[in-house]
């Protein structure tokens, strides 16, 4: 069965209340949704909130999902928007952090974690949507086309923004 048919069947089953189908969707996409959320929010707790919000929206929207786009594309779009919302909310609301993030993820080498933190800092200094696009491109691993669809931009525009962002980071470094 083609992938799109599998996705459509999973979506239809999950929409009709089949928890197993929804679990399969969750299991298949949770890592990517988390990567997107982590890249956009830059913080684990906020990212987990965004993941939860994403899958709640997916659950609510499954009945409306049509196979016009792939399930993954649809999920990526929801994930990007949920992560942006969550990041905005986290900035707007009063947040008192006693400590910085607990310890870094033990699955990640310390120097890589530091590199990630540095890139997040640098991305935060980029103007307009460049920081967001850079995070989605380099950290979340989305293609220019996927970013364009998620942010309602033209693909060449996204490519140009990535290029500009990389050049600017190089200047800063």
């Amino acid at each position, binding site marked *: 069965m083609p992938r799109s048919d599998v996705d459509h069947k999973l979506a239809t089953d999950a929409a009709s209340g089949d*928890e197993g189908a929804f*679990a399969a969707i*969750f*299991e298949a996409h*949770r*890592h*990517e*949704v*988390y*990567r997107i959320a*982590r*890249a956009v929010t830059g913080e684990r*707790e906020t990212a*987990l909130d965004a*993941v*939860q919000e994403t*899958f*709640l929206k997916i*659950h*609510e929207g499954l009945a409306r999902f049509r196979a016009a786009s792939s399930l993954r594309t649809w999920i990526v779009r929801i994930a990007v928007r949920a992560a942006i919302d969550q990041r905005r*909310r986290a900035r707007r*609301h*009063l*947040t*008192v*952090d*006693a*400590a910085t993030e607990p310890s870094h*993820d033990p*699955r*990640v*080498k310390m*120097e*890589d*974690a*530091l*590199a*990630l933190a*540095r*890139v*997040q800092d640098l991305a935060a200094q980029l103007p307009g949507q460049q920081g967001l696009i850079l995070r989605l*491109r*380099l*950290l*979340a*691993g989305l*293609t*220019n086309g996927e970013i364009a669809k998620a942010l309602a931009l033209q693909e060449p525009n996204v490519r140009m923004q*990535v*290029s500009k962002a*990389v*050049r600017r*980071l*190089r200047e800063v*470094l």
Partner: protein
Amino acid sequence: MSVRDEWKDEAGDALSELLEGAQRASDVGMSEADGAQMWERLQAAPRRRRAPIGWIAGVAAALVVATALASMRRPVPVEIVKEMSFESVHQGKAVRFEMTVYRERRRRRTMPTSRLFDGILLAVVLAALAAPARAAAPDPLARPEFDQDLTLTMRGETVVRVYDALASFAHVPFILAFDESDPSLKVTFKAENMGVRAILGSLAKTYDLEYTKADTAILVTRKGRAPTEKRTIVGPWQAPVPQYRFDYVLRVGDRVLSTPWVTTGLKQEVRMTQGGQAVLGAPEMRMEVDLTPRKETAEGLELGVQWSLHEGTTKTASPRVKLFSSRHLRGSRCL
């Protein structure tokens, strides 16, 4: 070169190395533990949205889970004393609250976890039973400031710090007059669109505290106990007595050495210390001025003043001579 790496030509070696490290760190997906926890949260959330009975069942289930978790021995570096969480949708807004009270394991325990938790549970039950009898008493939390919804995240904080944050948000001072039975207890909580009153209620139940109205402030005491002498005031504190500001000019001849100022109120003696050198290279001098409020008048606060001059550890002039025994300085009211 993968599509993800098409930027490498423009990046240069240093940036490439940095970005590759960041990519390796980002490639790690959600951990299995987070995945399992997330799935549980997802399973609970849609059911709660469908029916109010689901929300009640969810809270009950959360309490059962919290009880079970608190009584378990956990192989983690902290010891969970109490956990609570719930979420609901109210007027189109998601309301979430999670609170974990814990202590660090390396600290010595003052009470076994299960006994402490039993004590907290018993206190909660007794509080619930006693509530109807005390229903006639005015609720100190019945203030419009506590009607606000708050989104607040705190990690590894003391209960004092939590009250400080709540006081700052609600602009209501709290007088914390209770002994911290276990100072190593820390609280981590995340509230989203949660009413301040509900958060205060949860804190009181968790820490076995009660609230009393104290003028514009809220007095927080251990339940059934008198306020302790040692108190911590948090929040936008308004002084209980008027405060006065005094401005001084210290001169040597025509040369102004400094222009210190001090605030005080009736029954608040204050000492002002001013250090300096009369001449460059000369020994450090210190002037101490003791201000003793006498009475408040329409013009301000009348003060008695004593001063002394010190050079190193030696008192060199006017050892506590009352210079203004028949005169008083006047300060202007500032609060």
